[in-house]
């Protein structure tokens, strides 16, 4: 029995410091992303979430130049970009996607510039490129308290605006007539997304940021009809994918070809995707039978 256990949990898993930090930060971020992501998906803002993740990386690479802590670079520019997107975005989804893409393009252009300056004027290597495409489970445990605080803030926003957001997602008119500031609620929701996404991009990488924002929520939507339950399921699925991903990455340390472990982002993304496809199965089978 212990042989099976040691196959699943490679020796040293629970004792490893980086793993513990990874499990804690990854777990927190997965939960926030799942909860906030539910509304992001419902409001069709998957693209905005993805754009904000990459833009926050821009903030991270720019922070080296200005000398502020990367955390505030990530979070600050993400919230700023969300404000810009909200200002120039139009109510109709198509216009909003266009605005999102433009802001993302401008943000990435800046990222290119920052990286170039980083390489030319400072001696930092292209580590930030790996932020975009890799995962950064090397965050020191000292940021955990701030991450928790900001996560609670993001969840707090969504929890406070829970009913107005639901109502305005169904009909902006109905909500407005009831006295809901539809515009303000939407802007605050996007800010919560910006927070969640910045935190996850900082701690576990920009790819995972989008994956955990969108995937678990989309999966949870298939599982239940009750709005509150969707958020809970999304958090659980995200958490499961993240922890399993960390476990698999640890276990893969001696796998070919490079014998230095497969990246966590790959595993987590694969799991998120697998869960999503699994949730689609019942509908697929029903369609085929009909």
């Amino acid at each position: 029995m212990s042989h099976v256990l040691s196959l699943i949990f490679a020796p040293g898993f629970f004792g490893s410091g980086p793993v513990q930090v990874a499990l804690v930060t990854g777990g927190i971020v997965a939960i926030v992303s799942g909860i906030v992501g539910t509304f992001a998906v419902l409001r069709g803002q998957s693209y905005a979430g993805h754009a904000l993740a990459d833009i926050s990386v821009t903030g991270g690479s720019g922070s080296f130049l200005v000398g502020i802590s990367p955390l505030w670079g990530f979070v600050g520019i993400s919230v700023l970009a969300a404000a810009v997107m909200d200002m120039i975005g139009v109510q109709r989804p198509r216009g909003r996607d266009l605005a999102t893409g433009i802001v993302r393009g401008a943000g990435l252009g800046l990222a290119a510039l920052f990286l170039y300056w980083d390489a030319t004027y400072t001696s930092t290597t292209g580590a930030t490129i790996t932020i975009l495409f890799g995962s950064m489970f090397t965050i020191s445990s000292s940021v955990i308290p701030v991450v928790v605080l900001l996560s609670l803030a993001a969840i707090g926003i969504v929890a406070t605006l829970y009913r107005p957001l639901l109502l305005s997602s169904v009909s902006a008119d109905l909500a407005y007539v009831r006295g809901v500031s539809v515009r303000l609620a939407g802007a605050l929701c996007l800010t919560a997304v910006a927070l969640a996404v910045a935190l996850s991009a900082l701690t576990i990488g920009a790819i995972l940021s989008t994956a955990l924002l969108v995937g678990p929520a989309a999966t949870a939507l298939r599982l239940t009809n009750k709005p509150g339950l969707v958020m809970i399921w999304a958090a659980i699925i995200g958490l499961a994918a993240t922890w399993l991903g960390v476990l698999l990455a640890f276990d893969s340390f001696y796998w070919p070809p490079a014998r230095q472990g497969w990246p966590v982002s790959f595993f987590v993304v694969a799991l998120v995707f697998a869960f999503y496809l699994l949730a689609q199965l019942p509908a697929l089978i029903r369609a085929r039978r009909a």
Partner: protein
Amino acid sequence: MFSGYLLNTWTVATIAAVVAGVVGFFIVLRGSAFVADAVPQGAFAGAAGASLLGINTLIGLGVFALIGALGIGWLGRRGRHDVATALALVVMLGLGALFLSFSVEYAPEIYSLLFGELFGVGTAEVAPVAVLGAVSVAAIIVMYRPLMLTSVMPELGEARGVSSYRIEMCFLVVVALATSMTLPVVGALLIFSLMIGPPAAARSVTNRPYLAMCLSVIIALVTVWAAIALSLMTNWPVGFFVGTFGACCYAAGRGWAAWRRRRAVRDDMDRPLAPQPVSQN
């Protein structure tokens, strides 16, 4: 600036701008900005994989761009379109991360593939780019009418026997082709800026399709040429200029449209207090 070895760059960039202007017109029309953004990023993963296996990166780009585009189409049929795009994108990126982790010596090329590289265009690459470009533009011209129909009035298209799904798939394939061949100069992360900024500006100026398409090509050409010129002068990455100019084009278009609207409205007093309801459309 116009020395011999840069001629390739100018050529490829010009072809890229023309294709971006034409294909981008429909991307903006169909509201597929996310797709236009996701496909090149997925293509990047393919480039990483190709370099691993020792194949020409352009092939890797093309293959993964195609897989990504078709995957988006297939997934989009079963679920929300934006979720499908996001998931397809992260799966490709995850694969890209995997490939990157296998090979260490790939690292320097990442930057140029992501953000554009002026000097990386060999003469051997100009011909395939020209061919792919011609094929993309030809495909758009051939599909023009069904594409317009399904973009603007999909129900009418279905009634006439034009399958929205098939047209969407064909269009996605064209997008994949267009993005994979324009990558080398402008970079994966910013090619979409070229495909949405200029067309968005063109659409703000005119409603007539042919005129908008021509205008979007012209604006794209000017954007790319200016970006290359400025990049050569300042040594800053060309991607930065493309991203910034794309945003400027869009802003200029919006500003122009707003100014025209303000002139048309004589009475400002009756602006609605609430966002227009869905029922008004």
